[in-house]
């Protein structure tokens, strides 16, 4: 409990210090006098804020590491089985934690600004602090009583309104002398203000002792007094129109605040919650649970754990990176806002440049990490699904890149300043918007991701509106004061191309955002729209053109590096790259044609053309033109992307050759090359995806797959080779994907015994000895032969080891922790000989282990595996396995009735002779009671020349007579031998022999080839490298300017 209280107080501290920081920095930026003192206060507040955010994170981590499951957040996000890296990741698995990490990044960037941003510090940090305050409010977890809130808000409103009114009232005495016969409204207003303030303060004081003046005349007093105040304001307003000597905006603001205060004093309020704290105990989080209410300190022994799908190293790095990207977009935004309100419309660009590039770079890396993660483990072959969650981070990125180009245009030629400001500000607002989208639950029906609505939607909406509205007001106020751009832009100029780039990127962002926002549009307009049913195709049809335009602009635009280029020299410079790109495109197209590669949507186009005849004339024209354009779109994109790569490559080549220019200047070109490579990678891997697992005998699959799917999935019976396109596939068997206990390690191993260490379900550590036999005999994974060597740990049949440990030591629960299984499939490349016969290329064999997990009775959750080649990925995932496999795997049948054997007696079953040679009592393992008696029977098993010595064990409870068996297992015979009991009268030892039933084991597999997907990842790296160069250059310039 004490930790929880500490956590609550620390978040409160973070919240309050952020507010203080915001106010202090604002004052430092605004006021002429005392700026230094205000700044010092702000700095102290901000540093305290950062320290408390860090402490909150540290505390939460400590709670997770200490397994304090009495806390809701720890209970629902971590568990005993998790290894260290995932325990770290637990912090950002939940929404509260991800708000914290976001705040931490803001704080860290703020600290850097505090020491580098020079005279921009107060303004920029005021914005940072204000955002931090609102984010901190998201994790406050304070339940506000309606009455307290009412009076506090009332007080705040009055103080603000009064603060505005007071100087005006004094001014009005000189400005507008009341007519001697009229009422002195100014005096009356002041009187009323005094009365209301008194009533409110009195009420608050009384309220603290629990005695609200909820009834009686005091209750209505504020209402009356505010009404009088409003009348006073109305008079002042009237006068201000009349005399034009009173400040109208302030009057309006005061009027609005008073109106709000009046509404607050009248309406019925409910208790409400601000934020959702990660420090709630289970009892606090679940008021409906009676058990917990009776035992508020109850701590479960284990948590519910981290989502198994998320247990991947990307979970450790992707979320913090993405949040750093989100956090970094705040800095350029803060510079824009600070620039606006201090009237430094142009000056913000230089200091904000490196930050803008940094934000875009990190956000971009974060997005692509998400894509790679989805591709690698989560999805059915895709790195990008146009899911609202993915789009929500892509849209700010696009706007940011647009803004970056507009900023560049201003730096170089003094153009597009307003656009730069708008786009950089919009980037951050869009980050807020995506936060709202993904955390308010509004996307519920349109996304595959699941969201928890913590009841923060109101707060998130408020956050969005504050910054959107504030930004709008500031821009409206300053729009006409920004420097005009008088010089006309010429067509062949750097600034025009940069402008076009920003326009195209913005338009792309609008397009994507529009589709993503459909649930929001539905909420606002009451419509019931859903995304197009073929949403991928919809996005392709639009984005292919944007891709073409961006690639083209990035190729041509970059030539303006040498400032004003003449038309003729521009064309000359582009000549070579253009020709090379055209030539390459032609060659690639011929190769595609010869290889009978078909673009993914080709069939759709044909279908569209077929349907044309049945349409009206207008529809006919529309469809024909539209589809004809689309038919060539992918080829045009291919050309433009290649052109961009070659053009920018030639620019880098020139830069490197020229003396005096250094590598820092290659940033832009490198980023463009990266983008071109990414486009190529996307075009090929998605557009020319090819099914390898072609089923030549689709009937074999039965009807459980649609016609189309039946042709793309093959059934692989165990150990039977099946030939598909380019490969012979052999399914070798399945085994559990993860050991049923965590942190499994081998400490020492001898011939007989192996000492292993592990943690059980409750998180306790164990080290014990098991027979080494258990480790050497998994028939499934010993057949690897010449294939890729299976790591030793992977070869164990963990289920068997677990079974042994369970029986022997009564430690683990009998169920497997998870049902994920690995399916080993060998790939033998096929080569057609000259004679047309098929041969196996043994040098290139490899094995893949796609995973699958049963989900309900009929479906499964696949986790793909892939083989990476330089020019393509082979991507395999399981689409089916026999239902109930996990139950039938260990099915046994008795080969002979239970037999009693005296010592040296033999039993013959199916040509196998089993002889009892010795029986002995062995000590009971530690931790098992004295009433247990453990005996071990030595059996000699012979078949032909082979002999095995095995020792099945029997444990008898002398009190209850209960029996526990530890069977012996002879894999070569597929036999299990049990020492099933003792016949004390006949002095015989009972033995049972069971044989494993070979199950009809198969797997249904889908294998696709993703050509040139590595270009996408390579492009990402090159682009990031470009950004790094650009940051290096811009921050270098900045430093030079300062010193």
């Amino acid at each position, binding site marked *: 409990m004490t930790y929880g209280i500490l956590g609550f107080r620390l978040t409160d501290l973070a919240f309050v210090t952020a507010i203080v920081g915001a106010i202090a920095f604002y004052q430092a930026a605004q006021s002429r006098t005392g700026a230094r003192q205000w700044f010092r206060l702000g700095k102290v507040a901000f540093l305290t804020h950062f320290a408390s955010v860090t402490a909150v994170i540290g505390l939460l981590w400590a709670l997770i590491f200490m397994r304090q499951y009495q806390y*809701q957040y720890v*209970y*629902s*996000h971590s568990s005993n089985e998790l290894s260290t890296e995932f325990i770290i990741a637990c912090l950002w698995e939940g929404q509260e934690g991800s708000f914290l990490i976001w705040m931490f990044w803001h704080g860290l960037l703020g600290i850097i600004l505090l020491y580098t941003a020079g005279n921009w510090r107060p303004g920029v940090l005021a914005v940072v602090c204000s955002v931090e305050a609102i984010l901190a409010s998201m994790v406050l977890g304070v339940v506000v009583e309606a009455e307290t809130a009412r009076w506090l808000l009332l007080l705040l409103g009055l103080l603000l309104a009064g603060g505005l009114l007071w100087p005006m009232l004094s001014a009005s005495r000189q400005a507008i002398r009341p007519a001697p016969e009229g009422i002195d409204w100014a005096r009356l207003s002041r009187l009323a203000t005094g009365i209301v303030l008194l009533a409110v303060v009195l009420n608050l004081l009384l309220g603290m002792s629990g005695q609200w003046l909820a009834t009686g005349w005091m209750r209505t007093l504020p209402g009356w007094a505010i009404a009088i105040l409003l009348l006073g304001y109305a008079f002042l307003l009237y006068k201000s129109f009349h005399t034009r000597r009173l400040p109208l905006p302030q009057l309006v603001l005061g009027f609005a605040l008073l109106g709000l205060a009046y509404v607050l004093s009248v309406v019925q309020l409910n208790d409400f919650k601000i934020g959702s704290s990660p420090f709630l105990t*289970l009892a606090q*989080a*679940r008021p*409906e*649970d009676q*058990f*917990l209410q009776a*035992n508020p300190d*109850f701590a*479960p*022994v284990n948590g*519910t*754990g981290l*989502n*198994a*799908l998320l247990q991947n190293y990307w979970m450790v790095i992707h979320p913090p990176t993405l949040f750093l990207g989100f956090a970094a977009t705040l800095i350029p935004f803060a510079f824009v806002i600070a620039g606006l309100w201090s009237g430094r419309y142009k000056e913000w660009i230089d200091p904000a440049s490196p930050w803008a590039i940094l934000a875009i770079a990190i956000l971009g890396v974060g997005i692509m990490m998400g894509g790679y993660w989805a591709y690698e483990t989560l999805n059915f072959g895709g790195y990008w699904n146009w899911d609202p969650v993915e789009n929500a981070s892509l849209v700010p990125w696009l706007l940011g890149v647009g803004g970056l180009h507009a900023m560049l245009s201003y730096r170089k030629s003094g153009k597009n300043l307003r656009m730069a400001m708008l786009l950089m500000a919009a980037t951050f607002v869009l980050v807020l918007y995506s936060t709202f989208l993904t955390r308010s639950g509004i996307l519920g*029906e349109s996304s595959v991701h*699941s*969201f*928890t609505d913590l009841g923060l939607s109101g707060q998130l909406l408020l956050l969005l509106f504050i910054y959107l509205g504030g930004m709008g007001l500031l821009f409206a106020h300053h729009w006409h004061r920004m420097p005009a751009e008088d010089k*006309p*832009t010429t*067509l062949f100029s750097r600034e025009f191309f940069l402008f076009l780039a920003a*326009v195209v990127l913005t*338009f792309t962002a*609008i*397009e994507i955002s*529009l*589709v993503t926002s*459909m649930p929001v549009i*539905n909420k606002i307009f009451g*419509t*019931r*729209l*859903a*995304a*197009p*049913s*073929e949403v991928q195709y*919809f996005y392709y*049809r*639009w984005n292919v053109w944007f891709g073409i335009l961006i690639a083209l602009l990035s190729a041509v635009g970059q030539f303006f590096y040498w400032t004003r280029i003449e038309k003729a020299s521009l064309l000359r410079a582009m000549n070579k790259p253009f020709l090379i790109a055209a030539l390459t495109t032609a060659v690639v197209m011929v190769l595609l044609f010869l290889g009978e590669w078909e673009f993914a949507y080709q069939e759709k186009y044909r279908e569209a053309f077929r349907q044309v005849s049945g349409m009206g004339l207008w529809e006919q024209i529309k469809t024909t033109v539209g589809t004809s354009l689309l038919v060539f779109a992918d080829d045009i994109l291919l050309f433009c992307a290649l052109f961009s790569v070659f053009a920018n490559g030639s620019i880098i080549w020139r830069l490197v050759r020229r003396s005096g220019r250094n590598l820092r200047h290659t940033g832009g070109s490198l980023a463009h090359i990266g983008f071109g490579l990414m486009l190529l990678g996307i075009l090929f891997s998605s557009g020319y995806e090819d099914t390898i697992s072609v089923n030549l005998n689709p009937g074999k699959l*039965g*009807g*459980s*797959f*649609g016609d189309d*799917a039946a042709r793309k999935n093959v059934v692989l019976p165990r150990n039977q080779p099946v030939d598909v396109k380019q490969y012979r596939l052999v399914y070798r068997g399945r085994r559990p994907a993860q050991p049923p206990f965590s942190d499994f390690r081998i400490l020492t191993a001898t011939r007989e015994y192996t000492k292993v260490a592990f943690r059980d379900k409750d998180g306790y550590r164990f080290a014990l000895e098991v027979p080494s036999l258990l480790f050497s005999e998994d028939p499934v994974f010993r057949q690897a032969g010449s294939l890729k060597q299976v790591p030793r740990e992977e070869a164990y049949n963990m289920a068997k080891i677990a079974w042994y440990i369970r029986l022997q030591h009564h430690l683990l629960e009998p169920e497997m922790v998870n049902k994920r299984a690995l399916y080993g499939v060998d790939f033998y490349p096929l080569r057609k000989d000259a004679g047309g016969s098929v041969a196996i290329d043994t040098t290139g064999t490899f094995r893949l282990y796609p995973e699958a997990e049963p*989900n*309900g*009775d*009929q*479906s499964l959750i696949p986790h793909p595996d892939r083989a990476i080649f330089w020019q393509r990925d082979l991507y395999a995932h399981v689409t089916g396995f026999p239902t109930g496999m996990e139950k039938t795997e260990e099915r046994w049948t008795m080969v002979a009735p239970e037999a009693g054997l005296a010592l040296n007696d033999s039993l013959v079953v199916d040509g196998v002779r089993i002889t009892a040679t010795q029986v002995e009592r062995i000590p009971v393992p530690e931790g098992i009671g004295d009433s247990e008696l453990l005996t071990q029977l030595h059996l000699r098993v012979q078949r032909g020349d082979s002999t095995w010595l095995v020792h099945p064990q029997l444990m008898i409870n002398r009190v209850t007579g209960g029996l526990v068996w530890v069977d012996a297992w002879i894999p070569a015979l597929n036999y299990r031998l049990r020492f099933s009991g003792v016949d004390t009268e006949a002095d015989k030892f009972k033995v049972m022999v069971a044989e494993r039933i070979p199950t009809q084991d198969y797997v249904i597999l889908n294998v696709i080839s993703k050509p040139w997907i590595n270009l996408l990842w390579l492009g990402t790296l090159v682009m990031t490298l470009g950004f790094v160069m650009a940051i290096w250059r811009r921050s270098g310039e900045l430093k030079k300017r300062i010193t």
Partner: protein
Amino acid sequence: MKTRNLILLLALAAGFAILLVDLLSNASEFADFKHAQETGREVHVIGRWVRREEAVFKPEESYYRFYMQDTMNQVAPVVYRRGTLGDLSQAEKIDVVGKWENGEFVASKIHLKCPSKYNDAASPGKSIPHE
């Protein structure tokens, strides 16, 4: 100069208009069975499985027919022939995309929204194992 700005603005406006028209003409909509019946268009219908009505599940023939109650409480048969269907009994909500044909709703896509073990362990209904 002026004219070029104007052209650019017009081009942008035209582009935006085309985008809106294209999006709206391609968008499907959330609706109920009644609406699907009346318009015959492809729509999303969200509802729940009605267990007491007869359901036919033939995974081997890829044929599923079950009754669903939409948000307006209308019950109608849903037919699905495009592959395997998840576990209906686990789904708290079903989102079917399809058309009304011959007295039944023929689905082209079915999304099951399951209270999956993957999302929220902290949902209020779920109790904690005490002991």
